[in-house]
């Protein structure tokens, strides 16, 4: 019968030797993987951790695994050659997350496993957007300042915008001819600020058309825009005391399809022969098709968009074109409300500020001082 005590002693010794040997081996290997860090991605909503590994080129296959809620490691990513960082953007805020990094040599004869953990924390500010916040505060303060100036009765000068001055003339001409007005609110949905700006212009036009008893036709590409346009026109008719003259069927949904919408509008232009066409809002490749068809019918055409690349087409085919910011200024300009006009002066301050910053940026870059540019780089 073997001596139980010595058997146990031998067994324990073997295990001990194995542990020491393994530890020694791992220390050598750890030299090959210099450092592994799991860091919280700074200034974010606490849903991302950065796993950084600094390893020798001998490790050809580096696999990253992540512990799930039950502690089982599931594959997350395979590092490609030269990759040293992986951002895990699917972590819970303020909860510890464990990762396992397994590295193998190209012949898979040698391997190494490192386990590390980290916690992602929520921050109260996106530091990368500091410059954006400063600019926003400055511009908004300027706008509010000019609004308050206007409130106190200071007369503010704004330049004339021919495209907007001519609107009443266009409605008048449609009335003389006994033809309707066609208003296109662009191909953007209601979440596009250009569409909102176009609805403000529609409000003014609808009032004029109600006063002159001229029909206004508004085909829409999105049903949300149609609902808003109906409300705007209805209120405008109500405001001038002619609710009975409002025709809901004149503001309708055509189709979500871009060129189906264009085909529908072209058909209306050719059949109804409107005396005045208004294209206000967001436009793309369809702008020239619309404007040229309108041109062929001889209508007075006014366009307005902030899509810089479509402006040349409108300028060629339309009588008046509102360029970029003029579309957004239209509502304030048409309302004649001193407070709204005051806000336009705030834009001018913004423009001056941008010009100064641009010139300063150019000078700093020429001097090789990149800090200025980096400060304004949002990230």
């Amino acid at each position: 019968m073997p001596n139980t005590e010595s058997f146990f002693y031998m067994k324990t010794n073997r295990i001990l030797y194995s542990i020491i040997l393994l530890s020694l081996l791992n220390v050598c290997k750890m030299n090959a993987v210099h450092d592994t860090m799991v860091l919280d991605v700074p200034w974010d909503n606490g849903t991302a951790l950065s796993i950084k590994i600094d390893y020798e080129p001998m490790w050809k296959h580096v696999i990253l695994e992540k512990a799930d809620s039950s502690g089982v490691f599931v594959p997350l990513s395979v590092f490609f050659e030269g990759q040293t960082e992986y951002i895990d953007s699917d972590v819970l805020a303020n909860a510890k997350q464990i990762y396992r990094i397994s590295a193998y040599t190209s012949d898979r004869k040698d391997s190494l496993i490192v386990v590390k953990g980290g916690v992602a924390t929520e921050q109260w500010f996106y530091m990368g957007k500091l410059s954006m916040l400063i600019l926003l505060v400055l511009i908004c303060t300027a706008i509010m300042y000019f609004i308050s100036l206007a409130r106190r009765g200071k007369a503010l000068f704004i330049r004339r915008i021919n495209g907007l001055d001519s609107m009443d003339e266009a409605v008048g001409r449609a009335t003389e001819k006994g033809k309707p007005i066609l208003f296109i609110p662009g191909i953007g949905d209601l979440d596009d600020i250009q569409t909102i700006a176009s609805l403000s212009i529609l409000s003014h036009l609808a009032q004029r058309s109600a006063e002159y008893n001229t029909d206004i036709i508004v085909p829409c590409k999105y049903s949300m825009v149609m609902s808003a346009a109906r409300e705007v026109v209805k209120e405008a008719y109500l405001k001038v005391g002619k609710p009975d003259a409002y025709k809901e069927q004149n503001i309708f949904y055509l189709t979500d399809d871009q060129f189906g919408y264009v085909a529908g509008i072209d058909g209306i232009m050719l059949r109804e022969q409107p005396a005045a066409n208004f294209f206000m809002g967001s436009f793309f490749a369809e702008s020239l098709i619309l404007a040229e068809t309108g041109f062929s019918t001889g209508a007075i055409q006014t366009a307005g968009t902030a899509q810089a690349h479509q402006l040349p087409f409108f300028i060629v085919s339309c009588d008046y074109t509102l360029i970029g910011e003029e579309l957004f200024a239209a509502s304030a300009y048409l309302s004649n409300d001193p407070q709204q006009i005051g806000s336009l002066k705030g834009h001018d301050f913004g423009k001056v500020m941008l010009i100064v910053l641009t010139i300063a940026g150019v000078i700093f870059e020429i001097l090789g001082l990149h800090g200025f540019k980096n400060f304004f780089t949002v990230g």
Partner: protein
Amino acid sequence: MKIDSQTERRIIFIVLFIAVMLPLIFPIGWTSEVSPHVQMTYDMVDNTPEGSVVLLSFDYDPSTATELQPMAISLIEHAWKNNQRVIATALWPMGVKMADAAFQELLLKYPSKESGVDFVNLGYKTGGMVTIQAMGRDMKSVFPTDTKTIPYEDIPLLKTVRSLKDIQFVISLSAGDPGIKQWIMGAHDMFGVKVAGGTTAVSAPGFLPYINSQNQLYGLLGGLKAASEYEQLLGIVGPATVKMDSQSVAHVLILVFIAIGNVKAYKKRNSKKEGK
């Protein structure tokens, strides 16, 4: 003989129609030089590692397919050649069909590529910019199933894709809104994902300002010419290359029209002066 402006327009239309038709029937075979923005897009796809997941957004409908579909086919082929896996989404309702058509056409050439493993069509989602922002937070909540109604979690390709941040790059093929601009603002500016774009020739200049030092756009394919250049880089003679002859002849004809218009205006001015 005096020709009124409507007749003039009709003459222009007929001559242009003939000029476009003839090269389609009798190809000339002109080749294009690759422009820098096309090269940038090609390099972005080419430098993306094998096995990466990439996203193509089909933000157009059949009307602009002539210009954009060849781009889609070339981009998917390039990704597949590099063993990248492709997710297709659409911010336009009809984009879903365009994505299907592109995959079907390429499957004839690459029969080994498997749906759900090498590519997946997640379909259309309304909302534009809001949809992109939501995808940046959680893809599964936006697209719970693909177009074949297979649940998100059962699609092998999507196992490692939780949000937009797990995607190597996004290319939006866009004919308008929502499209490239929304992807730049949503995917790049908010989540730091690489974005490139493909658009119609008339809209392309509008996106050039986004190719800047901040890499808001990593490349831009503008119109049929860019599509033909991409085919050239891939070494294939695709639909865009075939149609480029027609486009080139039409461009030259427009120059002829401009010259005629100027001669006419000059004569008119002279006759007015003589009249005085």
